[in-house]
């Protein structure tokens, strides 16, 4: 009996691992936007999750425009050729990335920049305000119910119909988008001129100005990059979950923000690590503890980690000697 159970358990564990890692990678992509912005202007941009939500609605509207269903659409896209679907996906990706990047830029320029030298609470409260405005825009755009997002990608198991472990094209898509984006961002920040200017500005904005860095430009660029990542995340989320709602920004934004804090806010690798941990805790937690305890578990772990490492897992700031 025992021997018969064990492979099944292993299969389940592997499955939870896959589910956790894919969801975690998605959360990590959103978390990068929180952490980069915090790193550079010490602002928790509460509107970031809602920006992600609006990105999904932008994609949905484009799909509706192209005749691929839209609000209330339920059928799968099995009749369209994969060539057409690839084209449509690329179109959605371009739109959602540009839309979120542009919107994030606009919010920084019109709301946060005038408050740059105000007490820290002013931009923070404004960010909460922008979050509500975005959420209301989403409510207006998509209505109060969950909205179906066209099922553009097959749910077939890549390992075969009867395999014990499921890996779908959707899982592959998530990893194929998130991992290269995170690698590209890491390299960008490490080696490019703008990336170095971003790191310098994050570490000491006054000194960065004294080096000839246009810190306002660098801050704008940070919001644009963070927004673009949220846009990419919004599309792969919608395509793989097939349900979007005006509230999805709040829930996922909270996970992403938690991921950023867990990994050490301001640190890019920290956001990735935090996202993966949250994905895994959620996946294993709902299997072994129960769905309704998942959030308590995620935040319980956050609190425990912060008690022992207040700066987060990778947030070991070099002590500055004065």
């Amino acid at each position, binding site marked *: 009996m025992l021997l018969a159970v064990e492979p099944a358990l292993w299969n389940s564990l592997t499955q939870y691992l896959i589910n956790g890692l894919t969801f975690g990678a998605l959360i990590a992509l959103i978390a990068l936007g929180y952490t980069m912005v915090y790193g550079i202007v010490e602002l928790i941009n509460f509107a970031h999750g809602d920006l992600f939500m609006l990105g999904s609605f932008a994609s949905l509207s484009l799909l509706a425009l192209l005749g691929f269903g839209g609000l209330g659409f339920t059928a799968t896209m099995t009749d369209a050729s994969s060539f057409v679907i690839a084209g449509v996906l690329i179109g959605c990706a371009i739109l959602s990335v540009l839309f979120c990047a542009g919107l994030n830029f606009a919010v920084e320029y019109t709301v946060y920049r005038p408050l740059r030298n105000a007490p820290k609470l002013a931009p923070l409260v404004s960010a909460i305000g922008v979050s509500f405005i975005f959420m209301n825009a989403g409510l207006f755009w998509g209505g109060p119910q969950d909205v179906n997002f066209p099922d553009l990608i097959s749910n077939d198991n890549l390992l075969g119909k009867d395999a014990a472990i499921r890996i779908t094209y959707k899982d592959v898509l998530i990893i194929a988008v998130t991992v290269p984006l995170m690698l590209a961002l890491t390299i960008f920040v490490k080696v490019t001129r703008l990336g170095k200017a971003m790191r310098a500005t994050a570490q000491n904005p006054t000194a960065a*100005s004294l080096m000839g860095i246009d810190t306002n430009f660098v801050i704008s660029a940070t919001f644009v990059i963070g927004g673009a990542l949220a846009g990419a995340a919004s599309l792969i989320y919608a395509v793989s979950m097939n349900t979007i709602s005006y509230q999805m920004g709040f829930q996922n934004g909270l996970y992403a923000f938690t991921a950023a804090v867990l990994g050490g806010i301001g640190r890019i690798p920290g956001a990735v690590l935090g996202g993966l941990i949250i994905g895994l805790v959620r996946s294993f937690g709902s299997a072994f503890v129960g769905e309704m305890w998942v959030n308590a578990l995620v935040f319980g772990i956050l609190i425990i980690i912060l008690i022992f490492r207040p700066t987060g897992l990778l947030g070991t700031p070099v002590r500055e000697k004065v």
Partner: protein
Amino acid sequence: MPALLTVDKLRSGYGPIDVLHDISMTVDAGEIVAMIGANGAGKTTTLMTIAGIVKARAGTITFDGQNLSGAPAHKIVRLGMGQSPEGRKIFPRLTVLENLEMGAFTRTDKPGIADDLEKMFAMFPILRERKGQAGGLLSGGQQQMLAIARALMSRPKLLLLDEPSLGLAPQIVVQIFDVIRDLNKSGMSVLLVEQNARMALRIAHRAYVLETGRVTFTDQASVVLNDPRIRAAYLGE
């Protein structure tokens, strides 16, 4: 010949409070000008206003023939002004080498930058030994050397130094002041803010004394150094 830097009736401050009241001063090409004054007199505010970090509220700043009114800090750097700011403001998680590279942010001449890096390492050999280390891990003296070298990497015409000796061991202070003197001998103009008035006045050509945001005394450094009031107030005699 007009001065390299001319500050005329400069007023600036923070929030509702004016810190500087009608400050006027000049730095000629090739000079070391010292600015001394008690803690809180407004020395750092003067340097930060000249550099464009703090906005001037009235008065004019002319640098190398250009009016700096309203110019943002990052543009002023390109005109040839470098600063080692108060507290050094090293980028703590960038390596020593990366800190120096940030100093050359405004430049694109790769061979020239490489040359200047070598010069910095020759001037401060410890920076070469530590070039792969995070800036935040250096000692106070090493950070000061890095801050000066980083400012020099932009090839400035005028070097602003804010309290380069603060908190350093005496032999390091001597080393730093030797470097400032050598830089000046090779043509660098320097505006030196110091609480260590004695050391500053010994290497400076001229000096300004700042009290609560006003210039109250200015003369040749040797005259200032021997003025009984200055000796009583700033040299502990």
